Each structure stands twice: as C-alpha cells, then as structure tokens.
C-alpha cells in the first residue's frame, strides 16, 4: 500500500462516530487541564495518559492525540488571558497575546492562536506523514557547530526584537544569561554559582522564572499603580471574532511560523521555544504595523503559536523515525506508544504501518476537533477578563503560585518565584523588557554547551565554527541581521534611530 492509502485508511477508521467522540473527550480533557497555569502539555499528557489505557488501541491513540493537542492549546489560553505561560514554548504568545487581551481583543487573539495552531498542525502533520525520513536526515546533519550558529542567530534576532531599545533589550538578555549559568555544568559536572544551595544545583527552572516575571511582576505593577491605573480592563472591544484585517495579517504569519517551527522541532536538540522566538523576530521585522508590536500585534500571536504547534509535530519526526524522544512530552508519548506495542525506532514505518498511520490520522482528527471545541468557547474565555481587577489579579497570583508549587514542590522554589516577581516588577518600573531575561535563561546553556562541544570535537580549532555550510549560512544571516540596522543608522535614516534614542532617555 502506498503512503496515501495508509493515511486514508487511518482517517477512515478515525472518523467513525465512536472515535470522533473519543477525540472530543480527549481534546476537552486536555484543554481543561492545560489551562491550569504552570501545567504545560507534558504534565497534562502524563496526568491524563492513564485515562486512555482502557480503550482499544485505535480509540486510545485518538484520545491521546486529542489530549496532546488540547493540552498545548490550553497552555496558550492562559498565556493570552492571564499572562501565565505554562511552558517555555508559549512565553512568546503571552507577549503580544496578553496585550491584545488587555485591549479588548482577547477574542481575536484566541482565535488566531486556535486557527494558527490548526493550520500549522495540519501542514506539519502532513509533512510528518510524507517527508519525515528526509527531514530526519537533515536534522541529524545538525551537529554542535550548527546548533551553535542557530543559537547565535536566535540571540541576534531575538534581542533586537524585544522592546524598543537595543541597549535595554541586551541588558535584560544578559541578566537572563547570568541566571542561566547557575547550577551544575552539564559537560564537566562542576558546580557554578550554586553557593552550596542544593535547590540551585539543577539551575533555575524556566517556567518558574517566566511565571514570576510575567504574572507576579505584572500583578505587583498593577497593584502599585493603585487607583491611578486604567480603571477596568475592557473585555471585548469590537467583535469577539477576527475581522478581515486580522485574517489578512494572520495567514502569512501562520505559514511562516509553520515553516520555521517544523524543522526546528525535528532537530534532536532544537526545542520548541527557539522556533517561537525566531518566528516572533521574523514577524516583527516583516510587519507593516511595527508600532503595534509590544502593544498587541496579532502577527506576534499568530506566528509563534503556529511555530509552537508545527514544532510539536516536528518532535514526532525523530520520535517515530529514530525512537528518540527529544522533549518531555515526547518521552511520555513514547511510554504511551509502548502501551500499544508500538516500539518507535528506525524500523517502525516498515513494521507497524497501521499504527503509525493511525496515529497520524488521529493527530489530524484531534486537530480538527480542537478547532470545533475551542472557537465557540472563546466567547466564554474572554468573559474571564470581565472579573473586577482586584479579583482577577488575586486569582492570577493564586494560580501562578499553585502552578509553581505543583510543578516543583519546594519552599525554595516559592522563594525564587517571589524574588523574580520583584525583579520583574522593578524591571517594569524602569522600562526594561522582560522577555529577553527568559530567552537568555533558555538559550544561554544551549549555546554554551554546543560551542564547547564543537570546540572539543575540533580540538580547539575555532575555524570549524565557520567551515560547515549550514553553520556558515546561519552565521552570515546573523551577521546581516546585526550589521544592517547599524548601516541604515549610519546613513542617517533617522526615524528608527531617533525613536530609539528617545526611548533610551
């Protein structure tokens, strides 16, 4: 049977009424648990996986796929509405999404996230079905030096994309980098900056930092404004649905996000969050509405959300073709597959085609179900914002704390949450962007380890970093991204410059 026939067969069995019901239940459960702050998709899947064990293989695969996609979408919902990202991949979503929600555009933000996730999930799942064996070859070409070049590109594009001032963006980034070196060094096992505190040995948890900086910092900031702040958050301004302009601005961002997210998700050491960073940076450069970025630009939600979902499908590429789980969610999925006698590995597509195609078909169905479930719910979600401010922020504080304690039950972790919350508040007061801190915390260790591995393999020869074609291209793009604005500035195209200078006062 050809690839296409297998897929059709899988779709046919997944579309039976009973299986559709399982998909709906899975998506509902996944979304419901996924919206709890601090609980990302990995934990959602781990919590709900046992629910699927009682069904037959097809039914359980379908429900499982529903839980997976539902959990991911649930995480985006809290990012947008409450500014509490449940996992590192939805941090970027919170940036513009929450601003949109604050401006009464929560409906379109949630809609573009849902439709973007659907579009990206659809395309990426089809890519998974048809070109996984080729993509995985490409992913394996990525060695330490290529990863390092990718990180350099991410640093350059991201640090200039967050906030209006490069200086302030870089300052925030370096604060994040400083925090990222805390803990045991992975390559030598030596302690760094842990000051004998065992809780610091494993470094600073990204989600703790993100929730603290975004949710706690924001809450303190709002509380400190007291009655001087804007009176109420306007829950709905205009339509709850996306208008023509929103569609026009979203669809390209969805496609770009998919193209960026899928290959990065397929790389064994890529990580979903890097795709979302790059997508955000790309959207900010390409947009016709640069003034809206930082104040709720719809592209800034559409692109990263698509990248996030595409990269989740990309994660399945090494999982299904090599048996390599590259994220926590993928590892839990692996346990799930083994339950059905599916042993992911290089021979899987040959030995178990029915189950593989069943899974891929299930992912497509779950993706559709997610849209069916969530679009009508958007109206309900945005009502959350009509809760009076003191109640809303008190609730955010409670959920942020619960989420952190739930993920990492330790008093020290709670202390870190509050301390970073204070830091987030101080940075807000002095106008420093928050996101680069979290970006530095995520990218710092990746860049450092890959650089050191590359140099160890080459025995200290630095030229090796530029001699691989992929690395050279990535570094060249990074160099252009860094130098081009400087040249434009030198030539006196002063609008951007003066704007920057003004904001640096």
């Amino acid at each position, binding site marked *: 049977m050809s690839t296409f026939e297998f897929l059709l067969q899988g779709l046919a069995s997944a579309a039976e009424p009973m299986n559709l019901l399982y998909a709906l239940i899975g998506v509902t459960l996944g979304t419901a648990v996924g919206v709890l702050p601090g609980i990302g998709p990995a934990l959602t899947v781990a919590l709900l996986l046992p629910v699927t064990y009682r069904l037959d293989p097809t039914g359980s695969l379908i429900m499982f796929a529903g839980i997976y996609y539902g959990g991911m979408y649930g995480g985006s919902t809290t990012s947008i509405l409450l500014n509490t990202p449940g996992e590192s991949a939805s941090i970027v979503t919170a940036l513009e999404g929450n601003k949109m929600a604050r401006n009464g555009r929560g409906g379109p933000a949630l809609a573009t996230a849902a439709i973007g996730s659907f579009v990206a999930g659809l395309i990426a799942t089809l890519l998974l079905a048809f070109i996984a064996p080729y993509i995985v070859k490409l992913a394996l070409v990525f060695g330490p030096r290529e990863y390092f070049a990718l990180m350099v590109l991410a640093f350059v594009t991201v640090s200039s994309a967050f906030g209006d001032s490069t200086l302030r963006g870089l300052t925030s980034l370096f604060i994040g980098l400083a925090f990222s070196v805390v803990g045991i060094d992975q390559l030598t096992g030596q302690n760094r900056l842990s000051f004998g505190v065992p809780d610091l040995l494993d470094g600073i948890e990204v989600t703790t930092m993100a929730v603290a900086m975004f949710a706690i910092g924001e809450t303190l900031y709002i509380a400190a404004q007291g009655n001087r702040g804007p009176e109420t958050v306007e829950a709905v301004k205009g339509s709850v649905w996306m208008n023509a302009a929103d569609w026009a601005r979203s669809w390209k961002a969805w496609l770009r996000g998919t193209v960026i997210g899928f290959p990065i998700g397929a790389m064994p050491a890529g990580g979903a969050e890097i795709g979302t960073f790059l997508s955000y940076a790309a959207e900010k450069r390409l947009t016709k509405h640069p003034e809206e970025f930082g104040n709720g630009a719809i592209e800034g939600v559409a692109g990263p959300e698509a990248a996030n979902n595409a990269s989740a499908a990309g994660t399945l590429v090494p999982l299904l073709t*090599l*048996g*390599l789980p590259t994220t926590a969610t993928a590892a839990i999925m692996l*346990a799930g597959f083994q339950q059905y006698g599916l*042993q992911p590995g290089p*021979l899987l597509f040959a030995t178990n085609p029915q189950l593989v195609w069943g899974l891929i078909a299930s992912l497509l169905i779950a993706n559709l179900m997610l849209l069916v479930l969530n679009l009508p719910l958007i109206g309900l979600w945005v009502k*959350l914002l009509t*809760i009076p401010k003191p109640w809303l922020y008190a*609730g955010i504080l409670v959920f942020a704390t619960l989420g952190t304690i739930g993920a990492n039950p330790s008093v020290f972790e709670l202390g870190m949450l509050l301390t970073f919350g204070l830091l987030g508040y101080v940075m807000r007061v002095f106008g420093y962007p928050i996101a680069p801190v979290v970006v530095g915390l995520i990218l710092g260790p990746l860049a450092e380890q890959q650089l050191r591995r590359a140099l160890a*393999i080459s025995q200290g020869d630095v030229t090796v970093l530029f001699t691989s074609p992929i690395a050279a291209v990535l570094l060249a793009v990074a160099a252009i991204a860094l130098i081009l604005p400087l040249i434009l500035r030198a030539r006196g195209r002063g609008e951007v410059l003066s704007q920057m200078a003004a904001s640096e006062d």
Partner: protein
Amino acid sequence: MKHVFLASLLAGALALPAYAADYTIMAPAAPGGGWDQTARSLQTALQEEGISGNVQVINVPGAGGTIGLAQFASQQKGNPNALIVGGYVMVGAILTNNAPVTLKEVTPIARLTGEYEAIVVPASSDIENIGQLVDKLKADPGSVSWGGGSAGGTDHIAVGLLAKAAGVDPTKINYIAYSGGGEALAAILGSQVTAGISSYGEFESQVKAGTLRLLALSSEERVEGIDAPTLKESGYDVVLQNWRMVAAAPGLSDEQKAAVLADVDKLAKSNTWQETLKTKGWADTYLAGPAFEEQLAKDIAATETVLKDIGLVK
C-alpha cells in the same frame, strides 16, 4: 457562570493531588536514555502487576544523574512514595564531579539489571573493526571523539579503561559528554563524533536497522544473539557492566523501607518484569537489601581506584 467556571478551575487544581501517583519515579537523565527506559519499564510493570495503581515518571537530566540525585535527596526526604533510578554511572559521576550529594543520602533498595557497554560507529564510517579504531586512537588520541553519557560516567570510564589497556594516555582522550542517551545517539547517527559508547540497549534498534556498526562489547564472554567480539578477546582487557538500581528517599523509617523493599521484591519476581528484561535484553542481576548495600560500597571503592588510575579523579 464565571463563578462556576472559577470554582471548577479551583476544584480542578485542588483535585490534582488526588491524581498523585502511589509511586513517583525520578529518572535522573534526559528522556530516551537507559535510566529513563528503566524508570518507564518499572512504571509499566508496577501498574500491570497491580503493585501500585498509578505511577509517574519525571526526568531531571544532567551531570551523570547528580543533578537529579541532589534534587531527589533534598525534596523527597521522608517521602515513602518516591523512588529514583540510578546506577553505576552515578557512582562514577559523583566521584568525578566531587558532587555534594552522594548515594549515602538516599536509601538504596535493589540492583535490578545490568547492561554491557557497546562501542559503535555510524554505518558511513570507514572504521570497520575495533582494531582500526584503537589504531587511530594510538596514532592521535585527540582525533577520536567519543560521544557518550555524562562526564565521569560508565561510558567515560570505559573509554578511559580502553585507552589504558591499549597503552594510550587516558588523560588525552577526547570525550564529548551528552546529558542523555538520546542526545548522544543523535550525535553518533549524524557522524558528529568518531565513535559512540553506551549501553548496548541504547544502540540495539539502530544496530539491527544497519544505521550503526557495532564494533565491540565490554562483556566477559560473547553475548548470545549479539554479533560482536568482546573487548577482551580483541586483546584489550576491559570488562565493565553498567548496572542499574532503584533507591528510595532518605529519612525513611524501618517499616517504610521494608514496605518499599517488599514492593520492589514483588516486582522483580513478577512475570511482567521478567518479560521486560527479556525484550529489552537486560540481564537479571537482581540484588536487594543489605546484600546490595554491601555490594554498592564495594563498587564505590573499586570505581574510585579505577577513576584515579585513569586520571579522572585526582
């Protein structure tokens, strides 16, 4: 409506502890590697045998398991439902890294299984056998990069032992540490490193699919069903077994410890677990209680000598 909604959210959040596992098993490594597989196999077997209704696995990767061990020792103290998977890699890593938290700070329960180290190269490599690889190592130790698990772990020790047995200065080896078996495997498959070293089980499916070439095993004698020479018969006197164990949290009472031991004992003798060992190709080296603690102390002492010999510990 919104109150109902908030209330249900809150109820959901508060209800979470009800989902909490009877056992939570920490795999102190990235997903996909040997400890992760052991933890997940334990999870399945404990549930299927009805020993524990709901078991969860969490991954805390890094530094030969010492990061996970430190977190486990500090956060799970006195918790009779917490287990951690570990092994010989941890023994070496603790010594090499001079880790602040050692195996003395957990409660060892039982040794479950053991695997031999396998040396592989990608199928595209021009190295055909272990002799050619060692010749290359002799010619220029730095030019052979080895991809494997954490610094100072079994994989690292095995490379050091092989270098020493081949008459190469073990301090000159070029070992690239990855935090988990999965990440190392990707680097080997992608020809990022010259050779890979890890437990055989982590390479098995790739070897069978022909994407990796198996050069040698670190067993005493040839293993049935595996088509590769031992290091010993190839003329390098290196025999190394990478065993895996399960330990409980520190600060347990005698009754709590006995209860965990009873559960693990029941598991080790169950059909599900025996079946798992067979399918995964793991040898049954079950050893529990005081006998295991004694053996562990011996292993720690022996490893320290080995690490000093090959210059990984000063």
